[in-house]
């Protein structure tokens, strides 16, 4: 069998063995309902307590009571957004960005139909948010500002601390929700220092299993629960606690906190090696994010005049997994809304590939991709109808290199 080189860690990640180990007792012998009154439930309820502390530490929240366990990133976002809006029925204005994750964008589309006014802040050609536009958009009626910490497609980081300052200086009652699904485990998160009211994360993006997430809601922010029922999660999210997955999320959060240094140095080094390797060997490759500040694991590269799905299919044939912003891979017919918002030229948008590494990515794997990719790109480029344009591009690049 071909070896597997997994460079799609922004889509999902491998479960860390240590995480699985931490979950196992609660999938087997420790099955007690953590809310029960007998001694048997003590281990379960303690596991949840411990996990809550570990997630608190990952986010540097003040109090573990501010952490709510959810089933996924989308649930965290829905709980925060709908919960905060339902609690504050007087203000009807929301600000978000054009490059948010679909789970959030589609929710705002729905809220628009319910009478909310939503402003979508744009980004520049590197994917960096227009803070001036944000500043102008906040007004007295603004109930919520919702901005992702790091973008899933480009890895570009938003300056959350600065954003919070802007928002709060214009309207101190406006709540700030941050979708930190792509930031958790990749860069340090400090909800206190950054002035965040609510923040969502998803376990499977940092080596916990799918089906578990968390939402931070600071003690000053009130939300109406999305899922109503029992008293679990201090009445903010009903449903019997998913003990094994919560224990897994806790372990993953602990490992993520410990691993931040490695992300910042080693993962970044490998990402940069991959990026330089590709850009120096392939003339029709362009880095879509320019000099923007990014999480250490993500690289978004456009290959001009060719189409992304075909690149991915050829990569898949030799065991390499990546993803594309092309229309064809999504089934939606429209290319990535993120790359469109950045005005990535149409020559490159359909051939854009996202590479996302993890702490399990090895140097050998990166070397293999750098070795194999030029051949694949050449093969796909050779059947493109834009040979004239490609030739001109090649000549231009050769001149640039010569200079």
């Amino acid at each position: 069998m071909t070896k597997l080189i997994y460079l799609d860690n922004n889509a999902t990640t491998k479960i860390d063995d240590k995480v699985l180990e931490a979950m196992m007792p609660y999938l087997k012998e420790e099955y007690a309902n953590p809310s029960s009154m007998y001694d048997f439930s003590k281990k379960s309820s303690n596991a949840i307590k411990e996990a809550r502390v570990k997630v608190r530490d990952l986010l540097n929240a003040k109090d573990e009571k501010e952490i709510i366990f959810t089933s996924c990133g989308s649930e965290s976002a829905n709980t925060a957004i709908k919960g905060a809006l339902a609690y504050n029925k007087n203000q009807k204005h929301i600000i978000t960005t054009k490059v948010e994750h679909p789970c959030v964008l589609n929710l705002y589309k729905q809220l628009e139909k319910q009478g909310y006014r939503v402003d979508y802040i744009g980004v520049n050609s590197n994917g960096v948010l227009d803070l001036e536009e944000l500043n102008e958009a906040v007004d007295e009626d603004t109930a919520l500002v919702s901005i992702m910490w790091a973008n899933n497609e480009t890895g570009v980081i938003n300056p959350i601390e600065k954003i919070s300052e802007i928002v709060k200086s214009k309207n101190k009652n406006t709540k700030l929700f941050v979708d930190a699904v792509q930031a958790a485990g990749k860069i340090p998160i400090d909800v206190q220092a950054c002035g965040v009211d609510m923040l969502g994360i998803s376990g499977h993006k940092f080596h916990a299993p799918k089906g578990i997430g968390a939402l931070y809601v600071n003690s000053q922010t009130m939300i109406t629960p999305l899922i109503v029922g029992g008293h679990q999660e201090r009445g903010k999210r009903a449903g019997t606690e998913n003990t094994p997955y919560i224990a897994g999320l806790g372990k993953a959060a602990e490992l993520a906190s410990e691993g931040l240094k490695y992300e910042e140095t080693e993962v970044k080094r490998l990402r940069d090696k991959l990026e330089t390797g590709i850009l120096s060997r392939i003339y029709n490759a362009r880095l879509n994010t320019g000099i923007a500040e990014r999480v250490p694991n993500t690289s978004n590269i456009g290959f001009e005049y060719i189409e992304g799905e075909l690149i991915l299919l050829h990569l898949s044939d030799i065991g390499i997994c990546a993803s594309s912003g092309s229309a064809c891979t999504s089934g939606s017919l429209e290319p990535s809304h993120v790359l469109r918002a950045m005005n990535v030229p149409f020559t490159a948008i359909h051939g854009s590939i996202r590479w996302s590494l993890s702490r399990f990515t090895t140097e050998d794997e990166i070397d293999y991709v750098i070795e194999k990719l030029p051949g694949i790109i050449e093969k796909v480029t050779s059947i493109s109808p834009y040979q004239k344009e490609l030739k001109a591009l090649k000549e231009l690049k050769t001149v640039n290199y010569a200079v």
Partner: protein
Amino acid sequence: MWDYSEKVMDHYRNPRNVGEIKDADAVGIAGSLTCGDQLKIYLKIKDNIVTDAKFQTFGCGSAVASSSILTEMIIGKTLDEVKKITNKDIADELGGLPPEKMHCSVMGYEALEDALKKYKEEGYIDLDELNNDNSSDIQKEKIICTCFQISENMIWDAIKQNNLKTVEEITNYTKAGGACGKCKEVIQDIINTYYNKEKSQNNILTPTQWILKVNNIIETQISPELQKDGGDIELVDVKDKAIYVKLKGRCSGCKNSTMTLKNFAEKILKDTLGSDITLVEVK
């Protein structure tokens, strides 16, 4: 991951007849860079036979496979044979395509059509066309989907060749309506017009056949839905285009019954039998 057939995979892995024919007798183009796929097909034609064909494609796996297999399908064929190839033939030859990817086969068909049209301008005489009056189709060049530049004619062809019935299918086959979605209503109108035209041809039914047809639709498409809510509907009479029905069970006396009749029952009857149908409730 798309569920591609072995043949599709073989063709995108090892595309046949790739390249350009410098002295081609006809070149056809479909799609564009903006839309995310483009196909260029080059033909050498001698004595009304395609002697060689090559292609260049900017597109996904199924676009390359459609182009590649198309060149294999046309080499050695007469122009009259080539002209009869539809997008469905291309998809069938590939062992099928996922529904969302059918537009790739349509692109193959369009590029081929474009090449033949250009060749015709240079002297090829189409015998079939001389015998047919195609003047009614001329106005159909109107662009319906401005995002993907899809004309009414292209939508019409896709409906005809593939027996498409919904806007979603049209989007899968032609891309029309797949971006901003503003043209979806117009596409629905085109579908309605197409099938109403078919229906008008079916209108030479005897009164008994007509009543049976109406009754069949009520029994198979409307009644089961109402039964789910504890109600029912019964056909009382049919007078030409006026259909008289009686609501039964929970539906009778229900304050939403007018809504049920107008929004649900009448809509189904209009969609299936023509927009000139009226539904009348008998109390």
